């Protein structure tokens, strides 16, 4: 079972990154052209918008889809793609300085993502090191299950809780009932 604790430091950080992802994604989607111009990469406008969709998806995943670890790793992979795009875009670019600033920002975000991933995996490792409680003796019955099966088949159950006869499974003609 994938483990995550929605109250832990790692999870809180992951949620923060989730909101950051959504904010960045919306900005990339809505202001893709402006961002592209600022970095001198107008030809990458549609690509930046696509990255915005990716960021929003990761953000929703981090905030709402349970275990944040796969989504943090998806962010790290996305960071790598962002950096590759920016590195390529800095070549022969009169606004290479702006693209460099963006590259630095992505690098910083990547560092936070990696810290978050490490923290989440450490928390899972700690959880997995704890002894698993043994509930295998907790039947609730005074005797073995085989002896208890059907012990309450005489229970008073009113007709409104019964399946109408016409809807009940009946043994096929000439056969014993089967499952």
């Amino acid at each position, binding site marked *: 079972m994938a483990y995550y604790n929605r109250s832990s430091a790692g999870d809180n950080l992951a949620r923060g990154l989730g909101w950051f992802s959504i904010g960045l994604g919306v900005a990339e989607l809505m202001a893709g052209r402006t961002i592209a111009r600022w970095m001198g990469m107008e030809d990458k406008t549609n690509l930046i918008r696509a990255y915005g969709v990716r960021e929003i998806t990761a953000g929703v995943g981090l905030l709402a889809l349970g275990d944040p670890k796969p989504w943090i790793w998806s962010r790290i992979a996305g960071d790598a793609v962002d950096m590759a795009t920016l590195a390529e875009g800095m070549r022969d670019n009169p606004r290479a300085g702006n693209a460099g600033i963006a590259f630095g920002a992505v690098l910083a975000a990547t560092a936070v993502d990696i810290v978050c991933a490490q923290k989440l995996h450490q928390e899972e490792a700690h959880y997995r090191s704890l002894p698993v409680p043994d509930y295998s003796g907790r039947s*609730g*019955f005074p005797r073995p299950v085989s002896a208890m*099966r059907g012990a*309450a088949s005489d229970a008073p*159950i009113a007709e409104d*809780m019964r399946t109408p006869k016409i*809807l009940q499974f009946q043994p096929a003609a000439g056969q014993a*009932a089967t499952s």
Partner: protein
Amino acid sequence: MRALVWHGANDIRCDTVPDPEIQHPRDAIVKVTTCAICGSDLHLHDNFMPGMEKGDIVGHEFMGEVVEVGSEAKSALKVGERVVVPFTIWCGECDQCKRGNYSVCERSNRNKAMADKLFGHATAGLFGYTHLTGGYAGGQAEYVRVPMADRTHIKIPSGLTDEQVLFLGDIFPTGWQAAAQCDIQPTDTVAIWGCGPVGQMTIRSAVLLGAKQVIAIDRVPERLAMAKAGGAITINFEEESVVERLNELTGGKGPEKCIDAVGMEAHATATIDSMMDRAKQALMLESDRAHVLREMIYVCRPAGTLSIPGVYGGLIDKMPFGMAMNKGLTWRMGQTHVNRWTDDLLNRIQEGQIDPSFVITHTVPLDQGPEMYKTFRDKRDGCIKVVLKP
């Protein structure tokens, strides 16, 4: 007095609040000796149920000693008597109560007008479970006011511990009704989704009612171990295909009876529909995650029965209703008519046929309740059922 109070999403605190008082001649005040956190309380904690207000006292699974009785309840209750309080408040006089349909009592929901608008017709008043069900203060507290107390109680004879009888107020009859309304036959395979407290009670109920085989579906190892102890064949949905395994266990025909003991917060598995549900719920495009319902409709044997004790709060999306219709499935659902079952179940506990305390994994003082909500929600520390001692 101290009580667990709802302040918002993921924010339940142990506060000091005014003591309850008799407000109506049919009221009683109960000093709570033991209470529990129910799985459906998590829907409030996670803020998935509409109708909560800051300051509401939570909790609907509790028992204790009667310390004050209103004038019109004195013929039924006496100070000093030990009672479990059912989570459904019922008048005993309306048309539905006379039919034994206590969870849809027509008179106990004091916010009937609001509930009528949301549900078409109001359901019964419940303790500590939103203003849509009356906005009554709950029982995770030192004292609680019990409305219509002349009816809304289960008297407990001496010789039984709180832990043995506490769950008569909710999860035991809920699991029992879930199985009973399937009308289990000795040839039936009963598949139960969810091995939380209600799922565990449903497993035992299905066994006692004589199901040929009971199959329990979950992903938490200790919960599956407890299910197996109760007589279930277990399926860990993270390790194997539920559909394939159920077909294998039923000769390819599917289980005749399917029970949803999960409700509106089905875990997001690797399936597309459950991930979409989580995303849509987060974006407020739907209120309930219905993965279990969809899977039950898919796997159930045609002409079979779906029983739904799991709590749903509002709207679900992408329901394969054509599949359900064409397969001729019978649907049984609803909140539990607790007192309809409790005489019989109390007898079974007294006779030693079952001891519901098997499900308790954590017992803590009331002031540790807020932290235990998180432990229970996150399924940490092997937590299956939390009992609180005020």
